[in-house]
C-alpha cells in the first residue's frame, strides 16, 4: 500500500492494492490515525478492478470513521467494476468520487488521452503539472503518427504556455491531419505568433470547417487594423462557406471597420443562414444603431432570421426600444414571442411592463407563459399574488418558474411556498424549492432538508440535498 502526504500535510493519499482485502481497510485506518492534522483522505482505486461485497461494509466503515474525525473522504480513480458495485448497493450518492491523474505514470496518461471522454481533462492535468517527464512524453507523441496524440501534445504546449516549442507547433501547420492543423492554428494564436498570420490566412479556405473556424479565431486574436480590410474581400466570395467564415472573423475582430463591413454586407447578403449569422454578429457590437437593425430584421419573412434577431435583442441594452419589443410578445411565431418576452424582462423594470405581460398571459403558448413568469421575476415588481395562483398549475415548469420568481420579490411567501413545494409531485419543482431554501436560509432549513431526504426518491434531488447538508 503506497501512502503519500501532500506538501501542506493536509491531504493523505492511500493507494489500494489490486487484490484489495479487509486488512487493507484496517491499515488505511491506521494510516489515518498516524496523521492527526489531515483534512482529507483520498483512497486511490486506480488498480482495483472489482470490490467483493464483503468489502462494501469496510468502505462504509471507513467513511463513518472519517466523518467521526471530521476528515473528508474521497475515492479516486474508481474503475467501472467498482463503480457498478457501488451503484448496485445504492451507495454511489454517498461517496465523493474523483479523478486524480497524479497517480498515473506518463505512459498510462498517454493511454487515457486516447479515451475521448478523458482527453481534455488529461491535457489540462499535464499542462498544469508540466515537467521533464512530460516533456519526454511530448517527444514521443510528435513521432507517434497518431493524430490524437499529436493534437494533445500541441494543446498541452499551448495550455502550459511552453513557448520553447513554438517551432514544433509551426511545423504542424503542414500536417496531413486536420485536427492537428486546427490545434496548431489555435495555439499559435494563444502565443500571439504574428509571423504565421499570412500562412494562417490560407486556412480560411480549408475544406475542413473546424480548421477554417480556427483560422478565423486566430486571425482575430492576432489582428491589427489591416485585418478587417483584408477579410472584407472574402465577404464578396461566391463561396458561401468562405463568407460565413469571414463574418465570423469580423465579428471576432470587433473593430469599427469590421462593424461597417458587416452592416454593408447585410444589405446584399441573400443567404438565409448567413443573414442569421449576421444578425448575431452585429448584435455583438456596442453601437446605438444595432437595435434598429435588429428590429428591421424582424420584418423579414424568414422565421429563422426573425428568431435570431429577436434573441439578439436580449443581448443589447436597447432600453429605449421597449415599446417596439413589446409589440412582439404576441407574435405568431412562438420563439419570437418567447425571446421578446425575455428581452422585456432584461430591459424593463417598470410596472407597465409587468402589467402588460400579465395581461397577455392567458392568450399565449406554454413556452411563452414560462418566459413571462421568468421575466416577471426579472422585472421585480411585486406580482406575487398573480404568481401564487400559478403554483397550482398542472404544468411543472410553470409551477417551478412561479416559485422562482416569487423568491425574487417576496421572501416570506417564497419560504412558505418552497416548504410546501417539497411535497410537489414533480422533482423539478422540488429541486427548485430546495435551491430557494438554500438561498434564503430560513431558520432550521437544514433540518427540514435532512428530514425530507429520508423520503425523497429522485436521485438529483437527493444529490442536491447532500451537497447542502453533507452526506450520510
Amino acid at each position, binding site marked *: 500500500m503506497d501512502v503519500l502526504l501532500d506538501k501542506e500535510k493536509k491531504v493523505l493519499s492511500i493507494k489500494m492494492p489490486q487484490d484489495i482485502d479487509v486488512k487493507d481497510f484496517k491499515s488505511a485506518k491506521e494510516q489515518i490515525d498516524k496523521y492527526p492534522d489531515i483534512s482529507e483522505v483520498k483512497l486511490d482505486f486506480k488498480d482495483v478492478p472489482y470490490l467483493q461485497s464483503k468489502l462494501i461494509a469496510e468502505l462504509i466503515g471507513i467513511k463513518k470513521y472519517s466523518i467521526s474525525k471530521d476528515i473528508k473522504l474521497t475515492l479516486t480513480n474508481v474503475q467501472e467494476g467498482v463503480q457498478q458495485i457501488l451503484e448496485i448497493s445504492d451507495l454511489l450518492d454517498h461517496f465523493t468520487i474523483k479523478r486524480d491523474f497524479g497517480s498515473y505514470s506518463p505512459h498510462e496518461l498517454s493511454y487515457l488521452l*486516447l479515451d475521448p471522454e478523458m482527453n481534455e481533462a488529461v491535457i489540462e492535468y499535464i499542462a498544469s503539472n508540466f515537467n521533464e517527464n512530460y516533456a519526454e512524453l511530448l517527444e514521443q507523441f510528435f513521432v507517434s503518427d*497518431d493524430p490524437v496524440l499529436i493534437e494533445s501534445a500541441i494543446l498541452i504546449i499551448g495550455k502550459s504556455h511552453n513557448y520553447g516549442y513554438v517551432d514544433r507547433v509551426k511545423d504542424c501547420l503542414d500536417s496531413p491531419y486536420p485536427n492537428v492543423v486546427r490545434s496548431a492554428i489555435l495555439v499559435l494564436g494563444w502565443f500571439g505568433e504574428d509571423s504565421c498570420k499570412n500562412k494562417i490566412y490560407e486556412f480560411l479556405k480549408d475544406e475542413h470547417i473546424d480548421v477554417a473556424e480556427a483560422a478565423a479565431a486566430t486571425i482575430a486574436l492576432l489582428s491589427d487594423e489591416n485585418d478587417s480590410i483584408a477579410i472584407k474581400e472574402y465577404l464578396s466570395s461566391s463561396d458561401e462557406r468562405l463568407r460565413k467564415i469571414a463574418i465570423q472573423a469580423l465579428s471576432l475582430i470587433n473593430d469599427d471597420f469590421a462593424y461597417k463591413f458587416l452592416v454593408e454586407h447585410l444589405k446584399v447578403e441573400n443567404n438565409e443562414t448567413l443573414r442569421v449569422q449576421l444578425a448575431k454578429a452585429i448584435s455583438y457590437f456596442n453601437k446605438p444603431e444595432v437595435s434598429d437593425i435588429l428590429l428591421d430584421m424582424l420584418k423579414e419573412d424568414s422565421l429563422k432570421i426573425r428568431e435570431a434577431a429577436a434573441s439578439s435583442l436580449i443581448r443589447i441594452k436597447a432600453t429605449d426600444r421597449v415599446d417596439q419589443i413589446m409589440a412582439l410578445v404576441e407574435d405568431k411565431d412562438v420563439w419570437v414571442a418567447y425571446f421578446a418576452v425575455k428581452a422585456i424582462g432584461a430591459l424593463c423594470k417598470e410596472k407597465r411592463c409587468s402589467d402588460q405581460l400579465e395581461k397577455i398571459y392567458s392568450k399565449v403558448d406554454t413556452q411563452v407563459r414560462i418566459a413571462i413568469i421568468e421575466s416577471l421575476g426579472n422585472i421585480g415588481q411585486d406580482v406575487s399574488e398573480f404568481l401564487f395562483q400559478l403554483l397550482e398549475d398542472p404544468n411543472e415548469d410553470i409551477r417551478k418558474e412561479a416559485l422562482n420568481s416569487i423568491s425574487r420579490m417576496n421572501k416570506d411567501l417564497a419560504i412558505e411556498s418552497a416548504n410546501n413545494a417539497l411535497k410537489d409531485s414533480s422533482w423539478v419543482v422540488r*429541486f427548485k424549492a430546495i435551491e430557494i431554501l438554500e438561498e434564503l436560509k430560513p431558520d432550521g432549513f437544514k433540518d427540514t432538508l435532512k428530514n425530507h431526504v429520508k423520503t425523497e426518491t429522485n436521485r438529483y434531488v437527493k444529490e442536491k440535498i447532500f451537497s447542502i447538508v453533507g452526506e450520510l
Partner: protein
Amino acid sequence: MITSATIKMKDEEFAELADIIYKNAGITFTINKKYLLENRLSKRLNELNFASYKDYIYFLKYDIKRRDELKILMNLVTINETYFLRERAQMDHMIKKVIPEMASKGKRSFKIWSAACSSGEEPYSIAILLNEEGMYGKYNIEIYATDINTEVIGIAERGVYRSVSFRGVPPSIIDKYFTKTGLDFTLKPEIKSKVKFFHANLMESLAASKIGVTDFIFCRNVLIYFDVEAKKKVVDMFYKTLNLGGHLYLGHSETLSKIDDRYKMVNFGTGIAYVK
C-alpha cells in the same frame, strides 16, 4: 461573435438535461461530466439562438419539433469511440469456436446483431474476420448493426474511415479490405454489402423487433453508460430476442453479475460470453 465560447450550465439545468437523456437513452451522466455536456451542447444552443440551457430544455419539452431535436441531442451526447478489431478475442471466439460447433449440429444460417455499432467498425470487423475464415461460402450469415446516433450510422453506411480507426490493425488486413485515397480508407464493397444498418434505441423494445430472432449479440462499451435499471431492461430485451444457445458479448469492463442471472457465463480464457 463568440460562437466558440462554451455556455455554462447550472446544476438545475444539468439535472434536467441528464434526466431527459436518461429517460430517452438510458445513458447516465453524473455531475462530474457536466463539462462534457457543456462542450457538446454549446454550439447547438447557439444555432438555436438560445443563451441558456433552460431555454433549450423548454425547446425539448414544448416545441412541435421536439422529437427531431431529441435525436439531435442524442447525436451530440453519445460517446462513439470505437475502432476496427477492438476486443477481437470475442469475435474470434464466435467465428472459430461457436459457429463451427453450431454448424456441426446442422445449423446453416446465423444472424449477428451489433447493437451499438457506432460508426460501423465493430460489425465490419466481424464481416472481415468471417471472410478471412471463409465462412461466407459455407453459411448464410446476416449482420445487422444499429445505433441511437443517426450521424454515426451515416458514417457507417458510407464506409470511409481515417487512420484513427485502425489502431493496431495488421497492415495486411488494411491493404486487403480498404482502398486508400489521401487520408481516406474506403471499405471495399464486398464487405460493405455484408452489413445492414438501422437507427435503433436500445431503450425501446422496438429495437429488437427490427432485428428479429438472433444468434449473436455484440453490445460492447455501451452498457457502461447505463445505470442498473437501464441495463436490466436492455439485457432482458436481448434475452427475449436471442435463440436458445445464443451468445451475448459485452465490453471487457462490463458484467451481468447482479443484472440478470438467466444467462450462463462462459469464460473462454481471452474473454467472456453470456449464453442463453
